[in-house]
């Protein structure tokens, strides 16, 4: 009996040739072939993915980036953050501010001010909104605002070695507090209704199929890039340390590593990337409001990861798509059952399938092997 090396020992190869193929082919199909078919084929062609489909896939891709972040934190580092939807929404809000200003005078009130400001009786644009006219500034804010919040919170939390369920609860409370703030009109971000009615981005009409295709391609590209980045992170010595922190943080500490800094680095990095995903999500769905940043949403993202398979990078992507497809179906067919399905998924996965969907093939193989062999023999573990 020899245990196979799970983490290849010496210099871990980034990808084998087969892995490169299984990464590049789907990426190209999704990022190039589908948009091309959508653009070139006649509307009634059976092969043509509809605008709606592309939009849906684009949305799923941003969700998958969110899920990858949850997984990097939870599956690899052992931090169950219930605040990831907050970072996603902060990115969305930051970019939403830019989109809102880009409406110009085409809003309902034909004013330079965003509609909700007119409605609430603002006389002038608040000073902190001004720079959001600039796309580069908005992009920087998309990355930096979530990162900054993550830095402050993470610095305080990791420094005092809050972990496990305590950390989960504190992230949930942080999310809760932020959602409360954003729900208020006087906080200045549109209250309940948030931002909506966006018209254009970088001068392009948001409702035109070409713009929507571009947003879709950007989402797939982001997902692919984030996948590669996280792959690299987890294969490096850094990745081994992350898992070591997950399995026994104190031991890592006594090995001379400042674990709080490692955790903070990942937490902040993931927050920034999640914010970017949120920024791509908003123009595709056309709205951002505080209900996106509740703890419930964060926990939903955790379900995606749990269902797909945590501790792997493909699991969260599968999970995000699977659960959201299920949600679209369930809210259409049996809306009153959706919470049962979601809750049930949680319980079933945690109890019976801790490895998630990606562990199914292995489970199936073990099951088959058991069937073939007589049950009495001693089995290697």
């Amino acid at each position: 009996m020899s245990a196979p090396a799970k983490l290849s020992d010496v210099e871990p190869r980034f990808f084998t040739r087969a892995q490169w193929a299984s990464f590049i082919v789907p990426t190209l199909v999704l990022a190039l072939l589908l948009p091309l078919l959508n653009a070139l084929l006649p509307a009634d062609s059976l092969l043509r993915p509809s605008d709606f489909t592309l939009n849906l896939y684009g949305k799923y891709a941003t969700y998958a980036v969110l899920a990858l972040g949850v997984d990097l934190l939870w599956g690899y580092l052992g931090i169950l953050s219930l605040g990831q939807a907050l970072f996603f929404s902060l990115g969305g809000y930051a970019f939403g501010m830019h989109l809102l200003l880009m409406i110009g005078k085409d809003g309902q009130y034909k004013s330079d001010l965003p509609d909700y400001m007119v409605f609430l009786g603002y006389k002038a644009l608040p000073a902190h909104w001004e720079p959001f006219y600039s796309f580069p500034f908005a992009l920087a804010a998309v990355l930096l605002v979530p990162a900054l919040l993550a830095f402050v919170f993470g610095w305080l939390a990791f420094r005092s070695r809050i972990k496990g369920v305590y950390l989960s609860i504190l992230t949930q409370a942080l999310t809760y507090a932020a959602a409360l703030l954003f729900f208020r009109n006087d906080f200045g971000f549109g209250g309940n209704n948030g931002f909506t009615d966006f018209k254009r981005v970088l001068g392009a009409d948001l409702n035109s199929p070409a713009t929507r295709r571009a947003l879709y391609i950007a989402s797939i590209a982001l997902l692919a890039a984030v996948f590669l980045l996280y792959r690299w992170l987890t294969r490096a010595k850094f990745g081994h340390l992350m898992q070591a922190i997950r399995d026994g943080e104190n031991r890592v500490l006594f090995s001379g590593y400042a674990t709080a800094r490692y955790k903070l680095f990942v937490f902040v990095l993931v927050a920034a990337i999640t914010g970017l995903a949120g920024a791509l999500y908003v123009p595709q769905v056309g709205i951002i409001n505080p209900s996106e940043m509740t703890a419930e949403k964060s926990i939903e993202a955790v379900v995606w990861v749990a269902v797909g398979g945590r501790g792997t990078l493909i699991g969260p992507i599968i999970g995000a798509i699977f659960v959201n497809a299920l949600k679209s179906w369930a809210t259409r067919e049996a809306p009153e059952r959706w919470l049962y399905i979601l809750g049930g998924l949680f319980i079933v996965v945690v109890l019976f399938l801790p490895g998630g969907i990606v562990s199914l093939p292995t489970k199936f193989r073990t099951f088959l092997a058991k069937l073939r062999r007589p049950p009495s023999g001693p089995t290697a573990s």
Partner: protein
Amino acid sequence: MLRTLSIFLFLLAAAALSAAPDASRARLLAALVAPADQQVAAVRALVGLEDAALVPTLTAWRAAELYLVTTGTASPVPALLAPLPGDADGRLQALAVADGLPVKDPATGQPLTFAPKELKALDTTAPLRRAIRDVLEVAGVADPSPAVRRESIERLGQSRKADHLPLLQARLAIEFSPAVRSALQDAIAFIQLADPAVEVRLQAITDLAAAHSLAAAARFKEQIALPADAPGAASPVELAALKTAVKTIEDHWSRVNFFGNLFRGLSAGSVLLLIALGLAITFGLMGVINMAHGELMVVGAYATFVVQNLFAAAFGPGSLAFNFYFLAALPVAFAAAALVGLVIERGVIQFLYKRPLESLLATWGVSLALQQTFRLVFGPANVQINAPAWLQGGTALYDVAFAYNRLFVIGFAVLVVFGVWLVLNRTPLGLLVRAVMQNRQMASCIGVKTTRVNMLTFAFGSGLAGLAGACLSQLGNVGPGMGQLHIIDAFMVVVSGGVGNVLGSVAASLGIGVTDQLLQPVLGAVMGKILVLFAIILFLQWRPGGLFPTRSRSLD
């Protein structure tokens, strides 16, 4: 409208008639039928008359709705018209001012009925109407109801008319209700503020300051703000007195507000404590925060709702027995939540004792399913819970209001804490629970049936959530999403309070509840909550090495 109102009042007065002294009623009747040239004087003489029929009668008279009814040979009887019960033709009966009873036909003994047009209203003249108005203005001062007296006395005080002084002073001499007396003193002082004599004015200022009258403070401030040469501006001596008075009054009320907030904070903290106690116990045992704890609380609240409906169906909603439904609901709520908790423990949690983060997720799944179940069974809207009579209203001590339901919650929390302490420290179950909490393996080695202990403890913690829910049903809305509202605060209590540590939970929940309530008036509800959250995070900074630093031989 006015007519119905006055008739209603009249009927009320009629009901109280047996108690009304005949002498005052006779004076009232005499005024109604007095000769025209003496009528104004007779009406004005009614001031201070203690008779329940006074207001409705005069009101009707002024509105030309008082009639003289002639029966046979007898002299005409002043009466009000009221609908004849059970008569659809719109015919009216006359209720005599003298006794509030229907005027009867002397021949048949049957109540006389009239069409509205058949009778002629009692005449009034302009001076008479003025006199009636004046009498009515001060009539409330002698009203049988203390609340009405107080209100009308306060109104007179605000009018600042020196004419009312004698009446108020006369009333003060005979008034017995302490609340009305203090209102009378305030009103008198208020009127005396405009007294020509400066020492009377100063005395009035001192009196009002001593009475902590907010209305006086507002008026004083106006007066202080007047330019020195304006008419009615205060002299330097008076100005100093006014300023001292304003300060006295404002200090008093800020103290009252502080203690009021403190009290509300204590009661909010008690609610938190009730919610968090069960959470802390299950957490201490299984090392995981039960995300469905809020829903277990809702189970308790709905159980209270069901018990209430059963009582209403069995005894009628207004009955005396109904008032005791809440006492019956408490054990039911405990049992219902404990039962649901037991099912959750057996069905989900028992498999996850070594995987805290995952059991957090699984219990979240349970909470989603429970929420949906509440929606399907009880509907998505809040359900109506009627507080029993003994939990309604409140009392005040030194102007600080103490609502009975809040007092009850505080007392109940004290009882529950004591009960939990007893269970944990004085029962065999408590011994086992503490053993398992400290060292699960060791406890199991020495023969403790940990499975059973887990089950019972979890059920016990869940039952406590049910009790909290029953209590909360008396303070706020009961609906499917109610659990989510309070649960985050409860988590905060557990995080900052400590595991299975009853005292820590008490300190943390009271601390959070009181801080929250004291911050709210200053910062608003949301900012207060956010500040409390940050305070907790900072608190955890202050405890280096986390809340529960390990100090065992092995690492984790």
